């Protein structure tokens, strides 16, 4: 009886050690057929679509698309944790010395979204700035609708928030502390869909039937208007690689930039080629 318990314990320990050992090795190993993309949650849905198409064309290759945020994507690419880092903003000064090659794969608009029952259809950029800095706190001040505005924003460090602050608030502008903070495009979209008085901003790819995207300065938020340059809130989607893309990474990025890849981009975003 005792012997059995003893052997059992040894076996469990052995399995644990082998497991830890294998996991430790597996994590670091790079396979030729696996590609990891990590970073911006805004780029994520597009990367997933592109990866799906690429994998269909090239059986046996597996692409792993992860989120984490733009800053995380930049870090992952520079440290070799991911083969490709995805960022929905330009590189910051501190990030330019990391030896990363930037490939712009698409342009994305940032849409201001409200509840479908909200009568607001158009906002000026100044009104958006006023709402998000807390100078405008009710829909009455906007001129359409009534009641206090629920401002919904993203967490500090998010690429979408960074791009939004840069384009709307300008230097020194700060989003009001009264804003509800959600951790993802989907979270913002969900909050706005539930709250008739809410306003938030999301990547074009996250505009759903549950929310209404308003016009900015009279311009409808559509890929066409982003392309023509009429829509005000536009930012790049970038793929970052350590050095020049090579091998499978190059093959994938070439596919993304090919007419076929850019056609997929064009569904929700604006192609670059």
């Amino acid at each position, binding site marked *: 009886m*005792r*012997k059995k*318990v*003893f052997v059992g*314990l*040894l076996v469990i*320990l052995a399995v644990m050690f082998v497991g830890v050992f294998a996991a430790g090795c597996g994590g670091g190993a790079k396979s030729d057929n696996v590609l990891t993309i990590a970073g911006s949650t805004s780029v994520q849905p597009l990367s997933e679509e592109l990866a799906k198409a690429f994998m269909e064309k090239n059986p046996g290759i597996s692409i792993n698309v992860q*989120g*984490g*945020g*733009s*800053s*995380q994507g930049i*870090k992952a690419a520079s440290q070799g944790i991911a083969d490709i880092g995805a960022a929905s903003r330009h590189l910051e000064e*501190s990030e330019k010395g990391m030896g990363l090659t930037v490939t712009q794969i698409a342009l994305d608009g940032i849409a201001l979204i409200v509840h479908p029952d909200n009568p607001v259809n158009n906002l000026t950029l100044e009104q958006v700035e006023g709402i998000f800095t807390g100078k405008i706190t009710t829909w009455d001040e906007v001129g359409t609708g009534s009641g206090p505005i*629920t401002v919904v924003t993203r*967490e*500090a*460090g*998010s690429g979408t928030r960074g791009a939004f*602050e840069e384009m709307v608030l300008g230097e020194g502008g*700060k989003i009001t*502390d*009264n*804003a*509800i*903070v*959600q*951790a993802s495009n989907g979270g913002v979209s*969900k*909050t706005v869909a*539930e*709250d008739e*008085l*809410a306003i938030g901003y999301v990547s074009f790819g996250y505009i759903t039937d549950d929310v209404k995207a308003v016009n900015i300065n009279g311009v409808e938020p559509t890929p066409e208007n982003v392309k023509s340059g009429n829509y005000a809130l536009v930012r790049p989607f970038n793929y970052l690689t350590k050095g020049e893309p090579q091998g499978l990474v190059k093959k994938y990025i070439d596919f993304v930039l090919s007419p076929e890849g850019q056609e997929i981009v064009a569904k929700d975003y604006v192609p670059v080629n």
Partner: protein
Amino acid sequence: MRRHEWLIEKVLFISAAMAILVIALITVFVVAEGMPLFQNYSLWKFLSGLEWDPNGYVFGIFPMIIGSFYVTLGALILGVPVAVACAVFLAEYAPAWMTRILRPAIELLAGIPSVIFGFWGLVVVVDLIRDHAPGRGLSIVAASIVLAVMILPTVINISEDAIRAVPRSFKEGSLALGATHWQTIRSVILPAARSGILAAIVLGMGRAIGETMAVIMVAGNSPKLALSIWEPVRTLTANVALEMGYAAGDHYRALFATGIVLFIIIMLLNSLIGILPKKAGDER
């Protein structure tokens, strides 16, 4: 046979040492990552600052310390009376067949993943609050309600054990003196089980303070000092989880420093349990 005994003893010792080693490593890691912040940023400003603006290099976590305190207190106010009442019912009133149904149900409640609680809170609780109370639903109250439900199993189970551990003779003596069942519970059993029930509450408090996912989903996460229970709030755990994915440099360190503060609060709570008298009657 002897040698086997010796080996087993050593294997068990190593397993026990591993647990302590892991805790030590986590502590060292969190402290090592967080402490360097205070070479650039004053500890006092960090703890008492009212503003959190990582882009503007302002890291004040006071609103979040208060935020964690608010939602935890709210959860205790809402959850503990229900949980203790439930424990009394289970230990004193419930017939055996009902216990057989209630117990597994409570255990099931303990097993539900926190994200599910968060989702329920977002869809049901937040919606209800938005329709029937001031504010926009995502609030201290919403977080407190969700947490109150989440701490129920912990508080119920440990309180019930404490109540059942009260010597039978106490109850019999009280009944023999002519006290009714309820009088006995109120004046004899509950006071005798007091320390166990307090321990249950402290454990529930630990669970509430540490909860992250469900709170992020329903609390609104605004990093400012909440002035009303209907306003959104950000807790310490939410602060770390929300921004960790994006943080770099001193922002990253500030999040680890937030973790240190949380760590210290939890350790203080756990040592509270040690101070409590162990068994009924010990205090005399």
